[in-house]
């Protein structure tokens, strides 16, 4: 156990440095991204931000979970949301692809934009939205089907792909999720036979198989062991070249290792938002400082 933990620490540190330096240069390595047909080059130049959240309020029944949240999430970077439990991180995330629609008492007002699309409007097609904004949850939730069927689930819903196209797509997604080599010989085995970390990567593969532009991750590593966490962090690092990633985490170390920007939430408000380096080394706000230094929470 000991060596694994040590190696984890070293490797992630190295990664963090690399990725941060290469964010801008790697944007060009865009070919092969499924987002290319929806995000045309002109659009890219127009907007720097994948998601713009302006003054968003949100309620569960009478309880206000978010108070005037304003965050602009940059394209092709990793943005981390941190904050104590119950501060509204997940709520905000779940508005970004309208997963909150499944909660009858959830309401929101304010602006939540993706390009020109108002994500909060009634008329928006949530099915299409969710294809464009994928989500990965805290607990890996593979379907009780085969590995192949898990990844092919989304494409089957949305595309008129034939068998070989589907196979290509599954392979590609699993490769992207760094899972291909581990599962290529047992694609027809039940996904529930995979380990926790593999399951979580499978869920990521499943999410990218429908070609989303944004990938939301709600504490994707909190149920995983250190080695799997490491694998997921590496994966995020690779995916950021093609996807805009938003990650919620309770693990300060993780946030500082993996993200480009960090937002600190407290009681439904964004207390501080800025480049990760600054938030962790030189926070402007006393609360932020207390939190990131582990003095409360």
């Amino acid at each position, binding site marked *: 156990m000991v060596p694994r933990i040590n190696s984890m620490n070293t490797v992630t540190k190295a990664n963090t440095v690399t990725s941060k330096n290469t964010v801008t240069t790697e944007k060009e390595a865009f070919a092969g991204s499924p987002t290319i047909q929806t995000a045309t080059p002109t659009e890219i130049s127009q907007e720097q931000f994948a998601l713009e959240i302006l003054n968003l309020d949100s309620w569960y029944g009478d309880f206000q979970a978010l108070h005037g949240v304003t965050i602009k999430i940059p394209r092709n970077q990793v943005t981390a949301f941190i904050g104590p439990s119950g501060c509204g991180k997940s709520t905000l995330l779940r508005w970004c692809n309208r997963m909150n629609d*499944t909660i009858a008492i959830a309401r929101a007002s304010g602006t939540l934009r993706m390009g020109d699309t108002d994500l909060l409007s009634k008329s928006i097609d949530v099915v299409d939205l969710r294809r464009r904004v994928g989500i990965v949850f805290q607990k890996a939730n593979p379907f009780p089907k085969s590995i192949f069927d898990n990844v092919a689930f989304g494409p089957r*819903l949305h595309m008129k792909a034939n068998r070989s196209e589907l196979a290509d797509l599954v392979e590609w997604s699993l490769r992207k999720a760094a899972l291909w080599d581990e599962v290529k010989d047992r694609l027809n085995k039940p996904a529930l036979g995979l380990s926790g970390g593999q399951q979580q990567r499978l869920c990521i593969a499943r999410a990218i198989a429908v070609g989303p532009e944004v990938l939301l991750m709600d504490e994707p590593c909190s149920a995983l062991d250190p080695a799997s966490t490491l694998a997921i962090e590496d994966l995020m690092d690779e995916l950021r070249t093609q996807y805009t990633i938003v990650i919620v985490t309770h693990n300060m170390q993780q946030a500082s290792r993996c993200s480009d920007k960090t937002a600190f939430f407290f009681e439904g408000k964004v207390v501080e938002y800025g480049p990760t380096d600054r938030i962790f080394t030189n926070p402007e706000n006393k609360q932020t400082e207390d939190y990131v230094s582990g003095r409360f929470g």
Partner: protein
Amino acid sequence: MPESSSQSNSDQRSTPELRGRAGRMLTEKWFSYLCVATATSSVAVLCWLLYSILSHGLPALSWTLLSNPPEPDPEQAGVRPAFFGTVWVCAMCGLMTLPIGIATAILLEEFPPKSKLGGWVYGLIQLNISNLAGVPSVVYGILGLTAFVSMFGLFERDQDSQSSGFELGVTYYNQFFSEGDRAILIPVENVDDKLSVVSEGMEAYTFARDADGATIVDYSKLVPTEINVITYDDPYPEDPAVLENTLFADAEAGRVSQKSWYYFQVPFGRGVLAGAMTLMLVILPVIIISSQEALRAVPSSLRAGALGLGATPWQVVRTVTLPAAIPGIMTGAILAMSRAIGETAPILIIAGIVYIRNAPQHLMDDFTVMPLQIYNWTSRPQEAFHDIAAGGIIILLAILLSFNAIAVLIRQKMQKPLS
């Protein structure tokens, strides 16, 4: 709270004496004995019940009991028509109840109401289902009698008309019985026509015969035949071959019919369909509730996963929730069906006590079911009938136990962990 103590420091507090342990341990012991004794007596009751049935019924168990129709002589009596009646009624009941029940459960669990009014209606349906589950089955029997058997009296049968209100899947023949003891069948063109007068040259059929000369009673293999019509003045034919096709000119016909298994008429009468629909009322709430529980047991993370991939609600149900819930639903359904198999009161109300020798042939056929046959025999005073009743009970219990065993198997084998 005495005033003094609120001021006083905790240090001056006197400590009450500890209680003796012996008394508490004794209570503990006796209570555990009571529990064990009670649980044992519950099992003992079951054993007593089983013993009482087995001791009466095992000697009566025989192939005769399975294969014979009920007879006045207990030695010869059997449960065949009741057995097939049960099979028919329960199969029909399952076919109707499962889709409706599962659909209702899906509606309530997977399609949350979108508006206040919708929420109110859902609440009403949910409340209603839990109430329906508590309605005694005999009340359903009475409802079935009015709603299905007689259809609120809306379709009173016309005496002179041969047909009932509405029919489907039936071909009628006029049946004559020839002088040579053969059935001569003449197709009926118009159901409301009075019986025809026979004349030579009519389109007539007889049943085919196999190599041994035995009749094959099969309407699809009818053989066209020439009938020979005579009057009383004509000489009576001697030749058996001729006699077989000979009818007197004033011969009268009975209506017989070839009814497909799906023969359908309105009103249903005291037939299989009415029985099945009545049982449907009884087990529908059970199936809805157990399906709801099975659906609820599917982790919502799976739903969220599918929704997050852009699936519509029905796609979520079809591809994720329903497959995951199927073992649970099946288990519930099997248990509900075993309830249907054992139900007596509603069937008694629908069908009455009848002496039926044949297994039902179609949806509208008269029927009896195993429990009803058992009830019938139970209410006879002779010991011999009690014994065959117990034999019938053993058969019934064997069916039910195998149903339960299947349910347990499904629960254990098929129910994969979902997360």
